[in-house]
Every structure is written in C-alpha cells, then in structure tokens.
C-alpha cells in the first residue's frame, strides 16, 4: 500500500476574521486615541506656553537675533506700519511690558504673521494687494491681537508638545500609511486650536479697528480680498469642504459673516469713510 500523507485541516494556522471589520475597529480606536491625545496635550501645553512671562519671549528673540527683513525695508514703510500699530494698540489694552515690533519684508508672499517677542511681519506680497488703510489696519490689529493673546507662545508650546506626543505614539506604528494617517489626524485636530485663536484675534482686531476709525468698513472687504486671492490661486471649488476642514484659519466666508454679526452686536457701523493708502505707498513696497 502506498504511504499516504494526511493533510492537516485547512485554516489551522489562520485566524478566521473579517479583515474589513477588523480594520474599521482598529482605525476608529486609533483615531479616537489620537484626537484625545492631541486635545489633551495641546490644551495643557498651550496653557503652559501662555503662562510664560512675555519678557522671556523678548529675551529669547534677542538671543536669536533673527532678521525678519525689516532692515531692508524702506524707512517710510517701516514708519507708516509702526505708526499704524501704535494707533491700534491704544485700543487693545496692551499690558505693561508687552511690546510689538512691526517688520516689513520685501518677499512676494501673500501673508503676514505674528511670532515670539511681539514681532509682526508684513510681506510686500500682501501689502500690494490690500486696497486701503482700513484693510491693513484689520490685518495689523489681528496680528497684534495674536501677540496680546500670547498665541505664538501657546502655538509653539502646543505644537511642540503635540509633535513629540505624536512621534512617541505613532513611532511604534512604523513608517508609511499608518503613520501618515495618524499624524494627519493629529494635524487636523490641532487646527481646531489654531482656528479658535484666529477667531479670537479677529474679534479683538475688529474692536480696535472700530474704535480707531469709528466703523468697520473695510474689514469685511479684507476677507473678500483674501477669498479672491485663494480662489484665483487654486481655482478648485471641489476642495472647499477640505479647505474648511483642514485650514488653520476659518474660511473667509465664515469670517466675513462672523465680523458682520459681531459688528451688529456691538453697534459698530458697517459703512464709513475709507482711509486711502498714503501717497507713494506702492513705491515703498520695493
């Protein structure tokens, strides 16, 4: 009789499971863990960042001695922006010891930002697109409000702590798709915090602009300019929901509506005399 090798039963070495359900369960659990982690760490680290006295920010920036591009700026532009900042700060309850330094950078970047040490940077790429002083004032007050709210320190603290926590947590999940998905989830969760900061800065800025000019005309126009710029740069309306979801700033349409609501609530006039840009403004840009 020929020897017969009896085969083992099928599936002895394989766990029977539905891979799709298994994936969904693990994915949902991982996303919940990441969201909870990012929210907790960010809240804690942001508070720690805000509690650090402003003088340490100044001290840190004086040691770094970073050139924001202000040295290359024209004297007229520098003076104009600094004067505008001083005028707006009068309405913003800036605490003693806090200061704001405005820089003008010639790069063709459509942006302005506030960073540690009360440094506010305006790029020529943004300034040349703003139609009047009221729009510049809204941006300026917005960035000063970030300094006032200690957002750069909070953002730095929250961002660093979140990044380290995500690295520690997702490091075990290896590189590639899983790491990307978990890190993206962390980044999207983090945008919630930056959006809250932007909304608070908008509200504070609108109040300062209203007190300086007696109305908020021009502030909503600013966001229309930003909206047009974004639309013309990507031209992709299908991405709008994603922009809403992932952008660090609230959507411009939302911001316009929010500004209008706030103005109505405070009885700030929505119309008024627009202050034109000073003569020679565009020549100062170069």
């Amino acid at each position, binding site marked *: 009789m020929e020897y017969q090798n009896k085969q083992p039963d099928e599936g002895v070495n394989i766990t029977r499971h539905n891979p799709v359900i298994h994936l969904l369960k693990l994915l949902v659990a991982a996303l919940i863990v990441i969201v909870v982690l990012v929210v907790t760490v960010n809240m804690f680290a942001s508070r720690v960042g805000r509690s650090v006295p402003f003088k340490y920010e100044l001290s840190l920036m004086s040691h770094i001695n970073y050139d924001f591009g202000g040295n290359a700026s024209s004297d007229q532009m520098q003076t104009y922006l600094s004067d505008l900042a001083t005028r707006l700060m009068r309405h913003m309850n800036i605490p003693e010891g806090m200061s704001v330094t405005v820089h003008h950078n010639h790069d063709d970047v459509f942006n302005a930002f506030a960073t540690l040490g009360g440094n506010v940077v305006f790029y020529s790429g943004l300034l040349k697109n703003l139609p009047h002083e009221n729009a510049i004032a809204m941006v300026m007050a917005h960035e000063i409000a970030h300094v006032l709210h200690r957002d750069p320190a909070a953002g730095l603290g929250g961002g660093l702590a979140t990044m380290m926590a995500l690295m520690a947590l997702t490091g*075990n*999940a*290896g590189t590639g798709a899983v790491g990307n998905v978990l890190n993206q989830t962390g980044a999207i969760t983090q945008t919630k915090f930056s959006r809250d900061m932007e909304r608070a800065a908008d509200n504070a800025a609108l109040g300062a602009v209203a007190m300086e000019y007696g109305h908020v005309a021009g502030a909503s126009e600013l966001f229309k300019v930003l909206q047009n710029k974004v639309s013309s740069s990507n031209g992709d309306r299908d991405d709008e929901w994603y922009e809403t979801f992932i952008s660090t700033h609230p959507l411009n349409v939302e911001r316009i509506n929010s500004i209008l609501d706030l103005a109505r609530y405070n009885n700030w006039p929505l119309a008024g005399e627009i202050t034109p840009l000073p003569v020679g403004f565009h020549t100062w840009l170069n």
Partner: protein
Amino acid sequence: MIEIGIFLILLVCGYLFGSLAEKRHYRSIIKREAELNSLPAIASRYPATDKCYQQHLVYGGVVVASDYFKSFLAGLVNFFGGAVVSYESLIDRARREAMLRMKAEAKAKQAELIFNVKFETMTIGSGRLASVEVLAYGTALVPQIPSDPPVITPQYARILALNPSQA
C-alpha cells in the same frame, strides 16, 4: 483631498486584488497538495533504511509580498499590539508553497521520501514593501535501480553496521 483619495484607492485595490490573489493561490496550493500527497515529507533526521537510496538535497523557495491593505492593517495592529492576523495567511501560503516546490523537485527526481525537512524564513524589505521569503529544504531519498551498482555511503555503512539484519 487628493492624498485621502489615493490612500482609499490603494486600500480598496489592495484589499480586492490581495484577496483575489490569495484565493487563487490557495486554490492552487490545495490542488497541488493533493497531487503530491503520496510523497511524504517528514521532519525526522533519520533516513529510511528499508532499501538502498540515493540522497539528494531538494529545496523550494518562494517570496510572497504583502498587499497595501494587509500592511496597513498590520501597522494598525502594531499600534495597539496583538496578533498580526493579516500576515498569518501570507506566511501560511509561503510555507505551503515552498513545501510544494520542494516536493515537486523531489518528485521530478522520482524520490519516495523527503526527510529532515526544515524551513528558513526571511523578511525582505520593510514597511509598505514588506514581503517574506520561505525556503523549505530536505533530503530526498531516490530508490536505487537494482541494476545500479550498490552505493554504500559512509553514513549508510554506519546504519548497516548498527542494524545487521538490514544487510
């Protein structure tokens, strides 16, 4: 948006094509295992001593790649810990395929038995390029044709000395 779309497409494609390839592979494995069932492959280190055999080293190797879905699922399991069940079928297929290739080689040599069968496993690549190599090897015993002059290897001579009744 595009990144999310690409990721989902890769995940779905990985699942569909990976499942299809796996089912097809298992069908082939089960069919060939039945065909080669009469050729025993055993782990014993001692050869059969019932008659005179020629000994041949036979081996079968295979490299099986993971798909995107399996790798992603394994990465998630890595996050929480636990059995990486998505790779179990991968390893199972690789082991059985390597064994079948080894048996096919032995069958081609008209072997009656493979003894001292062992497996070697090696990962190739890492992360999303993870794949596994399995090598099965053993000693095939091919009966000597009666007209052949008897080949008494030193090992066989020792076995004969231990079992005089075999002579």
